[in-house]
């Protein structure tokens, strides 16, 4: 499916959803089904399900944002960065809570970082941090994204500082995985600091793919 056609389909889904009455139970069911499909690794089914969820939840900005964030994650996992960006634009253009918009900005930063566009990544990471204001559930992830960007920019000390902030956050289900990531970033920062300057520049686009 091409970019324009996918954008058109998402747009039509939202537009079609506006014409029908919101159905919270259906939206919830679709949201859970999409998450289940993603956990199974069935990205196509997850994409279809989240698109339907967006369609039925178009009048509920929070529900729309949640399903669009999920769709963005699915598209990013499928390697469709532009489709992911379009889904994130839906979140950022909605009246969703700042925490959800912070999460969307953080994912945009991550997308730009993966594309090697550090400047854009820095901008969106800053916006995400501002929207989160230290209270959103993605706070730890946003800080780690900043740390990774700093590390890729050769600022190992700044990266270490951001990672240490993540480690100081109260442990919870939302922060536990990111605190593990912070440990990893700290190790990479320490290694970068110990290396000669010409090797202190980690490849900017290195973490473009993730093997799970």
């Amino acid at each position, binding site marked *: 499916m091409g970019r324009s056609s996918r954008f058109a389909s998402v747009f039509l889904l939202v537009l079609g959803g506006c014409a029908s009455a919101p159905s919270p139970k259906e939206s919830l069911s679709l949201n859970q089904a999409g*998450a289940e499909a993603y956990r199974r690794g069935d990205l196509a089914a997850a994409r279809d399900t989240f698109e339907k969820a967006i369609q039925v939840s178009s009048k509920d900005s929070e*529900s729309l944002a949640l399903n669009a964030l999920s769709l963005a994650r699915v598209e*990013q*996992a499928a390697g469709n960065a532009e489709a992911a960006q379009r889904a994130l634009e839906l979140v950022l253009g909605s009246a969703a809570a700042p925490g*959800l918009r912070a999460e969307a900005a953080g994912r945009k930063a991550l997308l730009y970082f993966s594309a090697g566009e550090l400047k854009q990544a820095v901008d969106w990471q800053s916006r995400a941090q501002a929207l989160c204001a230290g209270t959103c559930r993605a706070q730890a992830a946003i800080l780690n994204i900043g740390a990774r960007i700093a590390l890729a920019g050769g600022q190992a000390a700044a990266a270490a500082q951001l990672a240490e902030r993540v480690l100081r956050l109260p442990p919870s289900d939302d922060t536990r995985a990111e605190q593990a990531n912070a440990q990893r970033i700290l190790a990479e920062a320490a290694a970068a600091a110990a290396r000669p300057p010409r090797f202190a520049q980690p490849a900017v686009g290195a973490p*473009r793919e993730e093997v799970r």
Partner: protein
Amino acid sequence: MTAFAEHDSRFEGLERKTGLFLALAAALVIGGFAAALVRQGMFTQTTHLHFFANSAQGMAKGMAVQLFGFKVGAVDAVSLETLGSGAPAGSVRVRVQIEREYLRLINQGSTARIGKEGLIGASVIEIVPGSATSRPVAENDVLKFERAADFSSMAEELSTQLRPILADLKSLTESVNRPDGDIRMTLRNSRQATAELASAAREWGKLASNADRGIAGVLAKADQAVEKIDTTFAKATATVEKLDTSLARMPDLMLKLERTLSNVEAASADLPQTMRDARVVARDSRTMLDGAKGSWPFNSMVAEPREQALPLDSFDGPLKPVR
């Protein structure tokens, strides 16, 4: 002379005696000559027959002609035919002279053959009469000719037939003498197989003795089993007797079972209604549970399912299938 003749009596009648002597000598000479002529067949009535041969080898003028082993004539002339003579050019015309009195024994299908009297005797022409139905030959008739196998041709034929046999014998002898030849190898394998057979026979002997011992053990166990079977049969007989007693009570048991089944059937008739009631109860229970979950204090204890976004991970990226 007159004086001696007048006085010697031995000369008396000398002229008469001399004339007699000369007449006797002349008679002897004439008789001998006549006998020679008779012997030569000069006074025998003869006729001529002909045959054609591919070669004049072994044939010559004066050669005897035999019929049934008796001489009945001789070869009169042997000549080579040329073009225009009526016979095939290059063939040999042989003319034989046959005594006329034997001509009636030679019919049209007769064949003249050249052969030898004995293995190494003189060559003769033998006339072999044909079928008895054909008529006798006439003067100057032509007979068929075939050359009978003589010793040299027989020897040559024998040599031709023996040559491949001798060649085979030679190759066979060579094969026998060759250490890696088939025959030597076959003999070696046969010797080895014989040795293995002897070994196998010994093994079979051992196996047979073991089998004998095993069979003896099995038979002993079979005897024991038969004894046990006898015991079991005795017990079975007792059980059957008991079973007879039990079967006598079966009608009563059957009646009881029938009554029980009737009761079960009556109870099962009410089952569908009971199941419908259970479904209604379950639905009512769910309604009550939903109501309770929304009421204080339970509404604060039960978490309401909410929509959630897939979490943001700082290391998110495209998924790569793990092999």
